[in-house]
């Protein structure tokens, strides 16, 4: 259900967005109580999920944010 490896998630998310820019959406769920961030990128056919509680992943999430410009 969750992709374990960030690089895979990032590459797949980028591909999904470049293939279907109008249909792809990117969701982020943050729970402070659990300290967890859950990322989801989907084009309503394929869904990629990644979850983390690591601060170091914040930088990577920023990189992902920048794709969606």
């Amino acid at each position, binding site marked *: 259900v969750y992709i374990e490896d960030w690089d895979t998630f990032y590459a797949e998310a980028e591909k999904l967005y470049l293939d279907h820019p109008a249909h792809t959406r990117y969701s982020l769920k943050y729970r*402070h109580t659990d300290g967890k961030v859950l990322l989801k990128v989907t084009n309503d056919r394929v869904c990629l999920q990644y979850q983390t509680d690591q601060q170091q992943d914040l930088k990577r999430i920023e990189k992902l944010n920048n794709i*969606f410009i």
Partner: protein
Amino acid sequence: MVLHDADGFLTQLTRMLERSREKGAVYVTMKRCAFAPAAPAAGVARLSPVDPADCRCLVRAVLGSTKATASTMVAAKDHRRFMKSYANIMKAGATA
């Protein structure tokens, strides 16, 4: 659905992150939209293949416990500035 301008939305997002400290979650969703929110009246030709510079991005934030929502449409040229502010807010909210 409450539509804000970019700065209003960022304020709402900050407040949501503060309110969710004890319980609940904050959901942020981003999706590209191919047309402007205030579309011209019917009779105007439909938009042909989208010019990348004209794309707008819809950003929504939901506070899980109270179902409060905020949203904004970000134009392509404002996106860089918006993303910088958004990143700062998330960094401040996500770690403290």
